């Protein structure tokens, strides 16, 4: 039993899922679902398709290479079973996985650095430009803050209240 990687999107293929295509030159292509398979049949290059892992790594959206990836490597020569080794490996896998996740989070944070500032700047600009859509210029002159104006319409209920208030 082996978990394979989808050739197109590089996601893991669990047993019982996906399709395998063997070409005449004996190269094997595994796909996790028909979406990837159909994209392949359309001869799309996964390096150019936005949602694949290859694209993301290539265009710097994700951690491209790391020692954690090198630790996970398909070995063609089987090793003789050694209980201690397997035990250590299982524990190490957990640790490696954790570090990998941390590092990926770090790359994401690096990428997103400066986003907040940019966002705020953009919001302010939008507010300044578009305030005329929700606040009349005269109201803006009276009240130069970039907020919604107070309603000036005479509502019947409030008038009665006012008169009541005045009476009392």
């Amino acid at each position, binding site marked *: 039993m082996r978990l394979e990687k989808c050739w197109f999107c590089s996601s893991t293929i669990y047993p019982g899922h996906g399709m395998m295509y063997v070409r005449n030159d004996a190269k094997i292509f595994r796909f996790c679902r028909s979406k990837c398979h159909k994209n392949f049949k359309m001869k799309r290059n996964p390096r150019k398709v936005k949602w694949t892992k290859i694209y993301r790594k290539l265009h710097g959206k994700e951690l491209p290479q790391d020692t954690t990836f090198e630790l996970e490597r398909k070995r063609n020569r089987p090793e003789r079973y050694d209980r201690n080794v397997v035990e250590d490996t299982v524990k190490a896998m957990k640790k490696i996985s954790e570090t990998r996740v941390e590092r990926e989070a770090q790359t994401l944070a690096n990428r997103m650095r400066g986003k907040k500032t940019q966002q705020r700047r953009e919001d302010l600009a939008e507010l300044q430009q578009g305030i005329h*859509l929700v606040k009349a210029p005269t109201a803006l002159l009276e009240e130069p803050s970039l907020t919604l104006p107070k309603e*000036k319409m005479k509502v019947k209920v409030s008038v009665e209240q006012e008169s009541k208030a005045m009476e009392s």
Partner: protein
Amino acid sequence: MVHYNLKRITVVPTGKDFVDIVLSRTQRQTPTVIHKSYAINRIRQFYMRKVKYTQATFDEKLGTIIDEFPQLDDIHPFYGDLMNVLYDRDHYKLALGQLRTAKRLVEKICKDYVKLLKYGDSLYRCKQLKKAALGRMCTLMKRVGPSLAYLEQVRQHMARLPSIDPNTRTILICGYPNVGKSSFINKITRADVDVQPYAFTTKSLFVGHTDYKYLRWQVIDTPGILDHPLEDRNTIEMLSITALAHIRAAVLFFVDVSGSCGYSIAQQAALFNSIRPLFDNKPLLVVCSKIDLQSLESLPEEDRQLIMEMKKEASKCSGGIASEMMVEDDDCLLTMSTLTEEGVINVKNTACEKLLQHRVEGKMKSKKLEDVRNRIHVAMPRPRDTRERPPVIPAGVLEARAAAAPRAPRRLEKDLENENGGAGVYSANLRRRYILADESWKEDVVPEIADGHNIADFIDTDILKRLDELDREEHQREEGESEEEDMDDDEFRKLSPEEQEALAAIRLARRNIREEHRLKKTTADSRPMVPRKHDKDKRFTVSRMERHLSNLGIDPSAAAARARSKSRGRKRDRSLGYDEEAGVEAMDVEQPKSKKLRMKSRTRSQSRASMEVVPGEGFKDSAQKQQALALGKKAMKKRSTGKTDRR
């Protein structure tokens, strides 16, 4: 020596057909178009080609016939004699000779006429020459016609001759007609020879094959022979004689002891004596057939005597050891009956044995055997001295042989399987043979997958070392990280909640504008847009405007008042003379006229007459609108069922 296949000779056509074939072939295969205006050389070539082609065709066809028919001198004398008997040697030779002569003559004709054609001066002359040449060749063929017919018949008969191999082991059956020769051959081989009560049922030689001691034997059935001198014999009898004369075979002379063939034993004995010369150097057996009808013991004395004489002769002439010792061979006389099948196999076996012996003796006497014997030789070294030299066996091998005492049989997997329930029940534990560092690991359940990863991909003997390296890297990275800080708060401050509200409202407004525009854009061609001033659906009211303005932050009262004052109200309200509310005359009030008007004016009435045409509906006048409405009503009316409905 050329090998003839007597069954595959090409068909010999009749004279007329022959001519037709050759001429039509010439006509098809040579060019046909010629004109007298062509160059004379070309004309000459044309006709010469025709003559030569005809000659070549004759040559070819006659050649094949001559080659395919066997030369009587080239084939085995048995066949030669057979064909002489059947087809008359002289006639055959003459026919073939005639064909040869014809071939030669055709060649001669061709040569002569080609020589003449070389000097033909016109188309007409050349044509006549060609005609003459071909004519003469064809006349020649017509003369040869009878030979061709004869050869065709010969060919047909030859194809049906039995394929007898004169050199192999053969058993020949002969005797008077109707004695039981064909029944015998039917019994021992798969040949299906006609057996009938009348004499001369078998009119030609028949071949059957049988097996004895893993060898193939030919059995030849001959037509019956009568007792008269050679010159008086007819063709059919001659067949048997020929066979007897030329084939070195074991001969079975059949004697009918019961006399049901119509001939007495005396007659049969006489025949035996007359063809005795033919039995020289052949193992001979006298077979008494039809023993079920008359047994040998119950025969009269004279007949018995004759049969004994025959037996004596038989043992004499088969040659070999018996004749040298002058002892009567008991084997020479056998009895059998094809009806009860007693003794049939015995006869066959005896005949085969005798022939085998005869052949072996012959081979032994011949020189060929010495050649074979000479080739086989086992060389033994000549002893130099009296010292013993036994074969050498290495000590290790001797020890191994000694040690290879029968050990206790090993306990095999098979035994284990049988003990634990047999093939379908027991499943061998392959782990028993694993070679591991620690034996207790053999029954371990090895995990393969963990957390979406293959464990086998991570297995490494120095995984711990790698892990340490990883830890170090992490430490370094963390230290590096803690130095950096997120410093983007200073430049731009956060928006207050009211400002965020405003932003949301702006975005909403933008979205609405976009939507409206898109809607307008798509429906512009399909629906007529009512210009706002007509406002059929009464969407644009003053209160709406008031609401909008107040949302924007402007006090709407002034604008609303202006809007209302601008619209003209009902006539009566516009009149100055009456003030409903106050009940006071307008003159009394000090306000100016225009202002009063403004205060009292109202918008138009909401209800409308159905005929009234609102601008924006698209009707010219109210009459048109009435018409349209009427048409609409009609369209909705239910028509009567029947023929009118379908129109």
